[in-house]
């Protein structure tokens, strides 16, 4: 496995996540897509770290931070989703288009 192969793999994962974010209308599904994209980023970081960096610990620490942030983000996002559901009885994103001036 080369660095390029790992990066293409990460890109593929990212694009799948992107597709999910754009195509799905369920808020939880969108959140799943975002998690996929975050993981793609993590893979990328670790791969570059593995193949290039002379200081391997740094890449791992960055990924740890990403995981931590993802956890925080997920917690907030899920609570927002719950809040939206309470408000609207739905978590369909197409029904939330009310940002009219």
């Amino acid at each position, binding site marked *: 496995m080369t660095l390029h192969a790992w990066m293409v793999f990460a890109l593929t994962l990212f694009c799948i996540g*992107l597709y999910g*974010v*754009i*195509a799905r*209308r369920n808020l939880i599904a*969108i959140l799943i897509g975002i998690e996929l994209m975050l993981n793609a980023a993590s893979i990328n970081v670790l791969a570059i770290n593995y193949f290039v960096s002379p200081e391997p610990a740094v890449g791992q620490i960055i990924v740890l931070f990403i995981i931590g942030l993802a956890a925080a983000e997920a917690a907030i996002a899920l609570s927002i989703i719950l809040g939206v559901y309470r408000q609207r009885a739905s978590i369909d*994103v*197409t029904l*939330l*288009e*009310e*940002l*009219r*001036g």
Partner: protein
Amino acid sequence: MNHELLALACVTAPLLGFAVALIGFRRRHSSAAAIVIASGLVSLVASVLLLITARPEAQAFTARWFMIEDFSIEFGVLLDGRTLIMGSVVALITLCIQVYSLYYMASDPGKGRFFAFLALFEWSMLLFVYSANLLQMFIFWELVGLASFLLIGFWYEKPSAVAAAKKAFLMTRVGDVGLFIGLILLFQTSGTLDVLGIANIFEPHGLPESIAPQRIELIAMLLFVGVIGKSAQFPLHTWLPDAMEGPTPVSALLHSATMVAAGVFLVTRFHGLFLDAPTTMTTILWIATFTALLSSTMAMVAKDMKRVLAFSSISQLGFMLMGLGAGSLFAGYFHLTTHAFFKALLFLCAGAYIHSSGTNDLIAIGRAGAARRMKITTIGLVVGGAALAGIPMFAGFFSKEHILSALHGPGQMIFKIGAFGAAFMTAYYTFRMVFLIMRPNPNSQATPDEPAYPHDDAHGPAEPLAMILPIIVLSLGALVIGFFGDKIGAILHVEHIHHPTIGEMAPAVVVALLGVVLAWIDFGRANAKQRGFVSLVPAAEKLFEKRWYIDEIYNTAIVRPVIMIAKLCYGTETRGLDKGIDSLAYSTAKVGREVARGHVGRLQLYIGVAVVVVASLVFYVGMR
């Protein structure tokens, strides 16, 4: 006596009077009046003393007002023949009118204010006359205009008075613009603001070679524009008849010694300059002659006593300018002096009649029997009328003779004929007025414009001392001032005064007597129809009554277009500029709203678009 102190007293007394009257005595009218009269008396005494003890050569007392870089602006008093005589005349006539107003304005709620303004008027006129400096001259020229604005609009609750004051201010301002530019050019040309210095450039030895003749013509023409405005010459004469809206003492002051006299005085002041501008002199002659004729025709049909006098003022001012335009400083100046006396006198008489009979209308005054009740006033009226008409031995006769005899140059025949015509009409309308008042004829065809009010005894005596005294003084003045021609000429340093011979005098006397006789036939004799000969041509009568429709012409030719332009500008402002900018702003807001309509929170669409755009950019950058 110290001349400097006298001059100082003369010019500061009215200012103090004004300030004290206006500030300290707003509610104590009699004190205000007393102070103003006292200040007027101080001015009169001081100026007469100056006149008597005057030295032959001109002297100027100036103090530095301020410096601009190394250029000093002086403020001061110039004492020479022209200023001394005029100053005394102004002080005398103002004092007479102030005393007269004491009774005339006795019951007016604004008496204190009136006296304050009178003092302001006197102060600005005196300092204008005495001014030693172009700038000072312009300042007080403007202040004279301001004071007359305030006094013409004195009864400010009367819309017509307000309109008249506004008209006077605006029309004189038109002239002021010309004067202002002229003074700037004069300053530029001569390099000095000193009046004596400027006079020295032009007076003794003709035009200096360093100055182009065209430039002097231009300056003289522009100065004359100012004179046209101030001295009510055609085409800016229409404000003067309307200025009758002010109290009668104001009219008396305005028409004799101040305001309108300022214009003529300006020409006498710079007469040397005008002499160097022959084209302008001819223009002055044309305008003056035309004005004299034009206003005389209007005076012949006017029914309002003050209006008759106003038109006569315009025509007499025309006479003065004719004299000056013909090149005779003495003739114009002399007439200015005599006119001040008899015109003030006539106005004061008119004021007395109006005050006692409650109407301005000549016929109504006559029928109210004013002439019989007010003997002294009537004598004053006759004296003044005779002086105005140019009856021999009265003041106006002498000065008018000088003007007529000054018109002897080549090509001035036409002006002389015009002057004779105006003199004839003057005699006619003056005695028309006199006869209408003295010999009222209940069976005549003349009808008053408004019913006469019966005399109200509540007004007090018909001829109180405060009113009679000035009339007597001025009558004496109008009787004797004519004999002082030589003296005035000497003070003015006029080398040789051309004394008209009997033969030269005869035509003018004949013309004047003809006018009187015609007036007698039309108005004076028993059973006269009291309809002027002008009424034989109804069209002419109508034309004269409507004042040649000049006001109407101005209305359509100037006022309306100005209003149109103002409307246009207003339209441009509100509908053009403002609306345009508003719509720019509103359309920006609208674009924002329209765009916002698309932005309703379709997050996924935005993300997709963003992704595609970023990717396209990457491709684009990669391709290069």
